[in-house]
């Protein structure tokens, strides 16, 4: 495995874990279960664009495990919800990135990721408390996901536009140049 890639992936896992923990501290104005800003989606989308969806899924799984460990929620209901949301949203974003990208921009992909993240979370939550009534929160979550997904999407677009092209190159290529 390329060392530069390995180090950068570890670096992304670290950033995503911190975002995962910090996000839980931020108070949100709406008391809706499963509502989240989805800041770590920024990292998932960046990793998808640099290293593909497989690497992004690995980063997402590690992020949820490490973030939950530090957040004190590991193996609780919040952990199951985060894991479900992270897996589904990363895979859906990876698919959309690969097959629909010029048509749908990174902002659109980010919105799709946020919507699927929240949808998967509320489905896991409904299973956990065995109550289909929780799905009535879905429209509120989608509304919020459109807002938060737009925010994270523009963040990703900004980072991609500003980041030097050689940043994600393989170490061998950099030595050559």
């Amino acid at each position, binding site marked *: 495995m390329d060392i530069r890639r390995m180090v950068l992936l570890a670096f992304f896992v670290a950033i995503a874990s911190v975002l995962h923990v910090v996000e839980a501290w931020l108070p949100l104005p709406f008391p809706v*279960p499963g509502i989240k800003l989805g800041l770590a989606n920024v990292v998932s989308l960046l990793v998808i664009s640099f290293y593909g969806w497989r690497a992004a899924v690995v980063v997402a799984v590690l992020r949820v495990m490490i973030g939950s460990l530090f957040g004190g929620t590991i193996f*609780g209901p919040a952990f199951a919800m985060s894991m479900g949301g992270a897996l589904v949203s990363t895979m859906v974003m990876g698919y959309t990135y690969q097959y629909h990208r010029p048509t749908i*921009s990174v902002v659109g992909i980010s*919105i799709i990721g946020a919507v699927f993240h929240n949808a998967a979370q509320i489905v896991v939550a409904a299973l956990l*408390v*065995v109550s289909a009534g929780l799905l009535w929160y879905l*429209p*509120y979550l989608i*509304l919020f996901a459109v807002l938060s997904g737009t925010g994270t999407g523009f963040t990703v677009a900004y980072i991609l*536009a500003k980041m030097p092209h050689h940043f994600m190159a393989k170490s061998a290529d950099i030595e050559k140049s």
Partner: protein
Amino acid sequence: MKILTKADVWLIIFLLLFAFVGIGLGLSRLVTSGSGTLSAQISVGGKIMQTVPLREGYRQEIEVKNGDHYNTIEINYGKIHIREADCPDQICVRSGWIGIATQQIVCLPNRVVINIVATDSDLDGIAR
């Protein structure tokens, strides 16, 4: 720098439409919900632990335990709320008082759900 594409805009419009229709449906459920006797079902992990009546003048305080965790539920003035809980997000406490059929309070960390159900008496059923 132009970032948003046409497909993005349609995606956003479609999602917002879906969300608002869903919210509208949820609100219309509140309006059309039965006006019979109201009661609150308190369940933990999908099992109904207690059903309490919601009528004027009925007061009760219930502590629901799930392992080491607790939710203190208060019933008064025909309404119900979670007064105190040891969950980290406090979403259940912040949900406040509810008193209309189909409303719900959820405490995910403690797996507590409170549902308000309207049980129409038989007479009402015939009269309709």
